[in-house]
């Protein structure tokens, strides 16, 4: 009941101190175009023989800090009691085909923007060790972040397709240029799967566009048009393919192992943390919120995909002999849980899924980053060599355990309320799926327990290469991800002044994400028996 109250109350907390000090009608555009402008500017700065490499890193870092500042303003100004889009920007772009430059965020969008901001900072810090072609690396990283922000803020399908596709080339170049030994295979897999997903999204968009009269790509028009059940089904199926390639979900997960294992760390963090969450966000925005009939019809199929993904990922992680590969598969678990929450189609599970997008992004990024850092510090990825590292790696041990707990959704972690809401919300509508997900989580717990026991608390392996603990820089980005998970886990509704309902400075992510959720979930509210009598 308490959880349902959180999800459905449309809370109206008191204004946060400082709200209204600074507003900008271009707040979303700034979060997209500032990184692009800085990337172009960085390219124009002469950098003979890498003399200004450190400056390039600093520019990228402070740009991200600036974006976080912009997002903090947006977060601070966000009206939690308004159901519709906020910070809207609308300009005609291609009027002859009905495409507009339309941006806007509601509660789930704002939550994703916050996630993107945190991941952006973590990615730059995780990339601080890059030494080759530093300028190009950070330019491409900024372009990925801009594209992710654009895809989140897009409120026109044309703009969404544009930014959704724009992530691919910078990510591929980062893989090719700075990836590990199997970077070629990883890159082409990424391009292939994400390209397929972009094509599927375009097919879905065009099908809906044609069926709705071909007048507009604006989500307000396109996604709210009355479509025949057949068209809704076709659009929904294409959207599932697009989302499954991005998240990823079984069987379209082929890129995940290679990319998370062989991408440079900063890129893995961005992909696992924010870029891949776009898949779930797409399903929420374009299927659950817009095509209730198709969503109801396809929900069992999505639930099966989610359950199979979790079971498969846990089993592969259990059998893996490579730490990064195991982490790559475990990073698929949060996305599958999120999608299951969407498939359950109850207001509580949808609310849980929105929170899970945020927590899942952080947890996936944390597990991938921890495994990457640990294997880097231990000079090997082989689970046959890694053993009993806890005494020599206290910081990484703590972070690894936090990552494992976050994946499983234990109390105090932000993923706890998310997974609880999803499972509680889904038992009525998808009982079999909920049991399957719970069983998958048990398998994941076993995989994590085996992994943690073997790597951290097993018998030390004296034949293994020398190890060292995380450096201060590594502690920063790992701590940022772990800290965000703990912060939201401890204060989901924001910290309050003792004895009052007055928020201190954070309105609380639960309150932010709830804005607009009642609209999204309204088709799935079960009829009230008392009202019908």
């Amino acid at each position, binding site marked *: 009941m308490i959880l349902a109250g959180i999800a459905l109350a449309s809370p109206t907390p008191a204004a946060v101190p400082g709200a209204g000090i600074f507003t900008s009608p271009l707040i979303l555009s700034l979060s997209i175009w500032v990184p692009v402008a800085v990337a172009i500017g960085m*390219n124009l700065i002469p950098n003979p023989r890498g003399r200004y490499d450190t400056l390039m890193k600093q520019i990228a870092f402070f740009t991200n800090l600036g974006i976080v500042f912009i997002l903090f303003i947006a977060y601070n100004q966000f009206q939690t009691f308004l159901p519709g889009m906020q910070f809207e920007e609308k300009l*005609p*772009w*291609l*009027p*002859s*085909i009905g*495409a507009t430059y339309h941006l806007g965020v509601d509660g789930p969008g704002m939550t994703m923007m916050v996630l993107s901001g945190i991941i952006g900072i973590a990615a730059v810090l995780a990339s601080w060790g890059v030494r080759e*072609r530093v300028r*190009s690396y950070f330019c491409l990283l900024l372009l990925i972040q801009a594209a992710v922000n654009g895809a989140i803020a897009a409120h026109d399908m*044309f703009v969404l*397709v*544009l*930014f959704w*596709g*724009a992530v*691919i*080339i910078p990510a*591929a*170049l980062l893989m*090719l*240029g700075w990836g590990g030994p199997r970077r070629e295979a990883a*890159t*082409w897999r990424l*391009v*292939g799967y994400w*390209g*397929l997903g*972009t*094509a599927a999204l*375009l*097919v879905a968009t*065009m*099908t809906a*566009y*044609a069926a709705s009269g*071909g007048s507009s*790509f604006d989500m307000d028009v396109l996604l709210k048009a009355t479509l025949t059940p057949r068209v809704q089904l076709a659009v929904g199926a294409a959207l599932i393919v697009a989302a499954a390639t991005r998240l990823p979900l079984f069987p379209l997960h082929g890129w995940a192992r290679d990319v998370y294992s062989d991408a440079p760390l900063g890129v893995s963090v961005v992909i696992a943390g924010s870029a891949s969450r776009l898949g779930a966000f797409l399903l929420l925005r374009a299927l659950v919120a817009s095509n209730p009939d198709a969503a109801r019809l396809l929900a069992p199929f999505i639930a099966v995909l989610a359950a199979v993904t979790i079971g498969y990922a846990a089993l592969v992680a259990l059998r893996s002999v490579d730490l990064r590969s195991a982490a790559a598969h475990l990073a698929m678990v949060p996305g599958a849980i999120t999608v299951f929450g969407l498939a359950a189609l109850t207001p509580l599970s949808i609310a849980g899924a929105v929170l899970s997008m945020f927590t899942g992004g952080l947890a996936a990024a944390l597990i991938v980053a921890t495994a990457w850092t640990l294997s880097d510090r231990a000079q090997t990825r082989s689970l046959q060599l890694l053993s009993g590292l806890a005494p020599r790696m206290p910081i990484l041990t703590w972070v690894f355990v936090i990552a494992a707990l976050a994946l499983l959704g234990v109390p105090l972690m932000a993923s706890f309320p998310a997974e609880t809401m999803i499972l509680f919300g889904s038992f009525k509508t998808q009982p079999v799926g909920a049991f399957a997900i719970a069983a998958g989580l048990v398998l994941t717990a076993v995989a994590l327990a085996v992994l943690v026991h073997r790597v951290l608390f097993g018998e030390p392996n004296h034949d293994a290469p020398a190890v060292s603990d995380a450096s201060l820089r590594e502690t920063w980005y790992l701590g940022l991800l772990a800290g965000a998970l703990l912060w939201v886990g401890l204060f989901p509704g924001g910290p309050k002044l003792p004895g009052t309902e007055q928020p201190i400075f954070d309105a609380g992510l639960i309150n932010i994400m709830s804005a607009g959720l009642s609209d999204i979930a309204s088709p799935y509210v079960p009829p009230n028996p008392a009202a019908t009598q």
Partner: protein
Amino acid sequence: MRNYVLVPEALVVAGAVLLVLLGRAPRRSRRWAPLVATVLVAVALAVELWAGATLSTYLGGALVQDRFALFAKAAVLLAAGLAIAVTDWSDESAPAIGMAMILLAAFGVMIVASATDFVGLWAGLELAAAAGVVLASVRRADLGLRLLVAGGVASALVLIGLAFVYATTGSADLSTVRRVAASATDTLPLAIPVFLLLGGLAVRAGLPPFQFARLPVGLGASPLGAGILIGLVAAAALTVAFKISAALLPLPAAFSPYLMVVAAVAMVGGGAAALATRSPRARLAYLAAGQVGWVAAGLATHYRIGLGASLFLLGAFVVAATAGPAVMAGADVGEFALAGMGLLRPARAAGIALVFLSLAGVPPLAGFFGEFAVASALAQSGAFWLLALGLLGAVMSMAAAAGTLRAIYLQSPPDENRRAAGARLPVLTRLSTGGAVALCAVIAGYGVFANPIISLADQGAEALGLR
């Protein structure tokens, strides 16, 4: 204002003649020729944009100035100007002839864009193609001969097709053909010549599977020659296809199925071939062929919105495909020639990268906006199978473009021995750097300013008599 409408054509022809004459002048006096030619084309473009909005007919109705002509001529002049500016003239065997030929090729497309009858269409197409033959022959006579023979076959097909359409409809005038077609029914005697005509145009445009003749020539020609063949000649063939499609619009069954097949083969074949090849210029040619397939797909919808979208894409295509080989300069020897270009020639490297990405349809560049507009037209016309094939081709093209970008930005420059073997770095001049920056601005800005451009393209489609 009416008297100024033909000034761009006059400037282009006069410039070409002067440049041919300049070929006999001492070398020192030719130093400023590229800058002068670029300025001349820029002036012609400015006049076209200023005076070209005047609707009128010339030469007894043989030429017409409408929105379609304005759009096509402006795009071609922009492409020609950028190609001249970015060309590494030290790598061209006969710079003056090269500049003259690109101006003549542009003039050919301008004639096609303004033509109101079959004679004008054929003459403009042949002029553009002949300029390509001349420039290919300057470097390698055998390739020029090969192109001449292949071009002769294409020309014969086009002529036979035009002659039979004339025989069937009783007129060579496009508006009359359209009037007759409106009251006629689809018949085999009409479908066969249209099939031949469009086949000839496909050979001219070098579309898969007809690339056997043109592609090797494009690879062996000088950078500017390749730009003419891959960009301007294809644009001339497409402009003829626009006019023929518009004239036969009342009888879509005569041309639409064939265009759909051509488009499907070009989009998928172009993408697959681009992925398979390692040579940058061949890859660019195949990416261009894939984008021509998108233009053909828009034409196949036989609706105004489709033709408008195709025209919008044609503008993006002609700029990238014409200036692309020129900005790559001597990179035709192999991918290693582009290695480290991002470090050594940043402006030129950015130009090459954007050309490849635009031809591959990667967002948010010119090609993406054009292909998206065509995709929406395909969806509206219900051709989802063609859209799906186009997307398949686009994914392959994207992967191919990423491969070239890797060479430019992520590989180390080749050593001096390999450089000496042919991978010569382009000579750095202010004009070429400025041209590369302008090329980047056009490709990146096409989408930002898509609203007025697509409006003009839509008016262009309307000018062809489409509602």
